[in-house]
């Protein structure tokens, strides 16, 4: 009976988490349009609902009701599968992130952990599942039977494989410092010192490498080559319409969200908010709340950074991108590992 309740609770937690995440993602899309508008000296969508608040839902509903075109010469099964893979892979990583510390509901003894699943190889799981997302894009490009899509798919696979490497290596430093792959523990380790124990202060280089590689992972400008609009029309999803296209769209933003969460968790101390422990005391409800809000704010900062970059930077060329990945980022990531190793050797009880 306990297991049944447990499963039910897990389902509830997953549902709540997904709804919250999807809401945030939906508003990220809106925020992107508004922030870009702000950068470009205009308003952005503000007529649908109060201040444009209903815009994402209008877009979504429209896409659901749009005619779904499947090209005649496409490989149908794969064509259907691709957006599903992309979205699922993006969503699945969501379960391991600790949104906050365990939260105790006031006047009861019920404690709710603000994480859906807690297991030892969480970081490995994140890296693994994220990599699967590439298949979605690659298969989409291949199965559409469109030359632009094919080029987009090829670019995606080459780009993501090379950047995955730099991304993974930049995380090795964190793993060495933390000595664990469990995200909750990694966050715990960054608490204290009034925020100065965040791993970003130990390995700023690793953080920058991660940030760069993460942008490439999520296909954002300046690394948005798989869908480079001015070159490949719409890249891998040129032939996709209606909800399938919306799923790719969604997957991109969810990816953006997850890499932001990972950056927050690994480098910016996760849900640790400086001085929150001193003021509220550990384990109280307010502490949990403040921590969770702090976590979300950090993630939003990263999202804003992404949008900001999009509004500012031009796009790399494909060979320059590969050169950058293999010849600059990868050696730097190795250097970062070396630095961390030295650091740990000199200060063993860091």
């Amino acid at each position, binding site marked *: 009976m306990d297991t049944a309740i447990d499963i039910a609770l897990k389902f509830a937690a997953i549902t709540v988490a997904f709804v919250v995440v999807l809401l945030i993602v939906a508003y990220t899309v809106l925020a992107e349009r508004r922030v870009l508008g702000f950068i470009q000296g205009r308003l952005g969508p503000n007529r649908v609902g109060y201040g444009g608040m209903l815009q994402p839902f209008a877009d979504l509903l*429209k896409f659901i009701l749009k005619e779904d075109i499947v090209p005649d010469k496409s490989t149908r099964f794969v064509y259907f599968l691709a957006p599903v893979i992309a979205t699922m892979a993006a969503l699945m990583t969501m379960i391991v992130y600790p949104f906050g510390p365990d939260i105790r509901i006031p006047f009861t003894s019920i404690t709710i952990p603000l994480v859906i699943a807690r297991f030892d190889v969480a970081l490995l799981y994140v890296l693994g599942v994220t990599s699967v997302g590439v298949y979605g894009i690659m298969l989409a490009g291949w199965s559409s039977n469109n030359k632009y899509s094919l080029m987009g798919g090829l670019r995606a696979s080459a780009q993501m494989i090379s950047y995955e490497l730099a991304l993974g290596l930049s995380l090795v430093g964190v793993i060495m410092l933390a000595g664990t792959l469990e995200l909750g523990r990694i966050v715990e380790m960054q608490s204290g010192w009034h925020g100065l124990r965040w791993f970003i202060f130990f390995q700023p280089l690793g953080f920058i490498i991660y940030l760069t590689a993460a942008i490439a992972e999520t296909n954002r400008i300046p690394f948005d080559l798989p869908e480079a609009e001015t070159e490949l029309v*719409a890249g891998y999803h040129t*032939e996709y319409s209606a909800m399938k296209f919306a799923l790719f769209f969604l997957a991109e933003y969810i990816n953006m969200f997850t890499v932001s969460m990972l950056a927050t968790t690994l480098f910016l101390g996760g849900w640790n908010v400086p001085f929150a422990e001193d003021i509220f005391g550990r384990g109280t409800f307010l502490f949990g709340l403040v921590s969770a809000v702090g976590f979300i704010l950090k993630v939003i900062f990263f999202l804003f950074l992404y949008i900001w970059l999009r509004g500012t930077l031009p796009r790399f060329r494909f060979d320059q991108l590969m050169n950058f990945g293999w010849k600059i980022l990868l050696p730097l990531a190795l250097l970062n590992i070396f630095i961390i190793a030295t650091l740990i050797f000199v200060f063993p009880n860091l």
Partner: protein
Amino acid sequence: MGLENVIAEALPEVLTTRLDSLINWARKSSLWPATFGLACCAIEMMNATSSRNDLARFGSEVFRASPRQADVMIVSGRVSRKMAPVLRRIYDQMPEPKWVISMGACATSGGVFDNYAIVQGVDKIVPVDVYIPGCPPRPEMLIHAVMMLQEKVMKESVRDRRDVPEEEAREAVVPGTLPITDGSTARQNTLAESRPYTIASRHERRRSS
């Protein structure tokens, strides 16, 4: 086939009319145009998204390069005889429901270019929902046209827009020919027959029948 056909068939009319307003609201709030500039009007179309006019306020700044993801085709400028089949093909590639704004005098009626090269009005090729006068129209007029289109969208019903059978749909698609520039000289004798330019969209044909 989109979800709306299922809705239109499964639900009684009372419910679909209630649903209409929701669906139409979504559609009108998110009219994404196809990136498709032809001539002078295209510059004013670009200008409509710029800081001063900001088409984005109505949720229509997302110019999609792929016609598969667009809702509105803004025919901005004169359509030449050579462009006509291409334009028709782009229209066919767009998923239903789709709308066409004919921007400017040339797209609407040929404008000053009443000659051998220009299609005298894009409505000979694709069904047009909103016409904008002017040569070129100001960006404000394009925004007005988008708002008029929004009003038009609000009056539609899912029951009007049911898909035609697949064979009929296939038949209606005119494959515009793109010549292959293979470097051979004097290819003008190879394509003899004239192309059928004037074919109503599926949606229009259904209404008239």
